[in-house]
């Protein structure tokens, strides 16, 4: 009994012990809050990536096969539910007209504005909807002059929306192009029908040499899309796969043209078996001599997911080290206390305390400090997670800074995951490390010779 009694009395009567308590409190607070929010981001980002990606994808095809042929080959697999061909390429976009935003000298010629490097993804609007949530990507558009594209014909632009110069006599209009919503805002292409030029190139074999053939094609903006995955939305423009095919010399009108592709998005029946399905499809492809590999969405985004996970792990280590530092604070205050309390140790021994009992007093002291700090810290962490948006708003209003770059991820609120297991882990760690760090001064206390302590005043 006296161990707890004295442990607490010492704690209460000695404000210096608050140092350790606050140390643990703040470190646990930081650990809990940062990791909960980080976990929230990971979950959110994973969901974003997942939402924009199909279950499986055949990537790296050399565009030398007919899609119909490959589709027939893969469709047999019982796990394959749907497929859609894609051509993924890269290019620069130029926007004609519009407000100019000079970026660097000599960048623009009159009325033409260069923008960035994009991934140009040719999709088949008919089948794309079966492998991804593509039709729903078109729903969200800002009020104003941007029209939401028609899911059935997303690349068509009504004649009356076209600039007069492009309204040709024969009913032909330039092909449409879908840009990510945020990106369209950023690039200030606010109007459906805005002309956009794609410039790129492709390699062709010319005898033994490789030759680069420049590609240039006029598009008009037919709408915007929002898949929810900010990185995908910001770097990708969607066009009709037939346009891409024609850019690669496979014009639909030509005799003997091939319905080429370099990616196939695949939806499977059971996503949990995706890896096994991918392996099966790969053997089938190899047997048929078709280039490219089928990968799961996680394999395709492995680097990105790994980077996030890596960062998460590093952050964890850093924060755990901070908890250790807080334990060192407890160690320091306890050591001080043991030195000051040698006389009390002698007294207690004279009253009938055992060495173990004396050690327990200081252990109780240290662990109780840590326990109070950890529980308060966890509570503070929990509260600050629940109210994270309010805190963020308050910071924005009063300091002009934000805690987390919410906008980058296109999130309405800061995500967080309150994982009880994680809380338990942090509490255990804080308690455990405080216990170990208290053990040293406690053992030192118990080894004090009570006679020595009693001899002097």
């Amino acid at each position, binding site marked *: 009994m006296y161990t707890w009694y004295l442990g607490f009395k010492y704690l209460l009567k000695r404000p210096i012990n608050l140092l350790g308590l606050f140390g643990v409190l703040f470190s646990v607070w930081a650990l809990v809050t940062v990791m909960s929010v980080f976990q929230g981001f990971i979950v959110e980002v994973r969901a974003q990536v997942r939402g924009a990606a199909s279950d499986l994808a055949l990537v790296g095809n050399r565009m030398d096969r007919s899609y119909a042929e490959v589709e027939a080959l893969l469709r047999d697999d019982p796990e394959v539910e749907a497929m859609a061909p894609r051509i993924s390429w890269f290019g620069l976009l130029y926007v004609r007209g519009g407000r100019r935003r000079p970026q660097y000298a000599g960048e623009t010629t009159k009325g033409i504005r260069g923008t960035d490097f994009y991934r140009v993804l040719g999709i088949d609007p008919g089948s794309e909807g079966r492998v991804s949530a593509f039709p729903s990507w078109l729903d969200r558009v800002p009020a104003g002059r941007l029209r939401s594209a028609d899911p059935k014909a997303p690349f068509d632009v009504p004649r009356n929306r076209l600039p007069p110069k492009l309204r040709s006599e024969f009913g032909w209009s330039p092909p449409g192009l879908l840009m990510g919503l945020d990106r369209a805002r950023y690039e200030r292409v606010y109007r459906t029908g805005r002309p956009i030029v794609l410039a790129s190139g492709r390699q062709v074999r010319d005898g033994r040499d490789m030759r680069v053939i420049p590609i240039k094609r006029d598009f008009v903006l037919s709408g915007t899309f929002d898949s929810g995955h900010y990185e995908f939305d910001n770097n990708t423009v969607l066009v009709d796969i037939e346009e891409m095919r024609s850019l690669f010399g496979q014009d639909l009108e030509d005799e003997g043209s091939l319905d080429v592709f370099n990616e196939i998005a695949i939806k499977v029946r059971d996503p949990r078996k995706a890896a096994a399905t991918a392996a099966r499809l790969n053997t089938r492809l190899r047997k048929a001599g078709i280039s490219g590999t089928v990968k799961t969405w996680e394999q395709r985004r492995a680097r990105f997911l790994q980077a996030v996970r890596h960062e998460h792990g590093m952050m964890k280590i850093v924060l755990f080290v901070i908890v250790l530092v807080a334990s060192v604070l407890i160690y320091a205050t306890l050591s001080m206390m043991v030195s000051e309390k040698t006389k009390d140790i002698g007294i207690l021994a004279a009253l009938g305390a055992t060495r173990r009992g004396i050690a327990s007093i200081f252990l109780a002291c240290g662990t109780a400090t840590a326990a109070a700090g950890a529980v308060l810290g966890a509570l503070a962490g929990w509260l600050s997670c629940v109210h994270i948006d309010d805190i963020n708003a308050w910071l924005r209003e009063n300091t002009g800074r934000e805690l987390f770059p919410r906008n980058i991820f296109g999130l309405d609120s800061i995500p967080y995951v309150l994982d009880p297991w994680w809380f338990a882990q942090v509490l255990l760690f804080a308690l455990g490390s405080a216990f170990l760090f208290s053990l040293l001064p406690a053992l030192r206390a118990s080894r004090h010779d009570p006679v020595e302590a*009693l001899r002097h005043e």
Partner: protein
Amino acid sequence: MTDLLRAEGITKTYRAGNRKIPVLRGVDLRVLEGEILALVGSSGAGKSTLLHILGLLDRPDEGVVRYRDVPVSRLSAARKARVRHREIGFVFQFYHLIPELDALQNVCLGAMMLTSVAGWLGMRRRVKDRARELLGRMGLGDRLRNRPAQLSGGERQRVAIARALIADPSVILADEPTGNLDSRTSEEILDLIWRINEEDGVSFLLVTHDAQVASRADRCLRLADGVIEDGTGRPAGESARGAPGAIPGGGKEA
């Protein structure tokens, strides 16, 4: 009266570097039930050392301490602590109270040493009442909530005595309990000790430099050159109250 505490052939040698300092060289001594035994000796004679050994705080190099014929100095550390708590009380020259606790808490602490938390909750009331009563007997009924720093030396020593009494020991080892007090306060404390001895039948082993105190005790022993000699000037076997005799110098008959 029978032996309460008996020391047989206690030796203790300290080492300073490689020089040996023999402090006790075969001390025989006994404390009878219900007596007040005075122990005198020049400074550095080893009185405190002997007291610590008798109180099981220190271990002798040789010899044995018996409590009611049980060789307690050979028990395990935990059992020694138990004996110390149950049977032996300490009072020191410098009071040695816990500064964080008030008078009442300091006294109660003496009763907490062996109980579990649950056990304490069960007996808390009783112990507190007893502590209040003891402090009342010490004349401190109205200073229960004062911390040691707010008490005078005499008052602190009274708290220390109450603390030694709370566990109902059969012997109290007092190391110069009045060494730090003026003569009037000393007198009060000594009266208190004699009263407790009378009312509760607790034995006292009183280390003192005061010849008057020594002569007032039932018996008086002198520690010199590491052995006990009868130092009262009174013949061995005779005491102030006519209790059976002290052990003659270096007494071998124990």
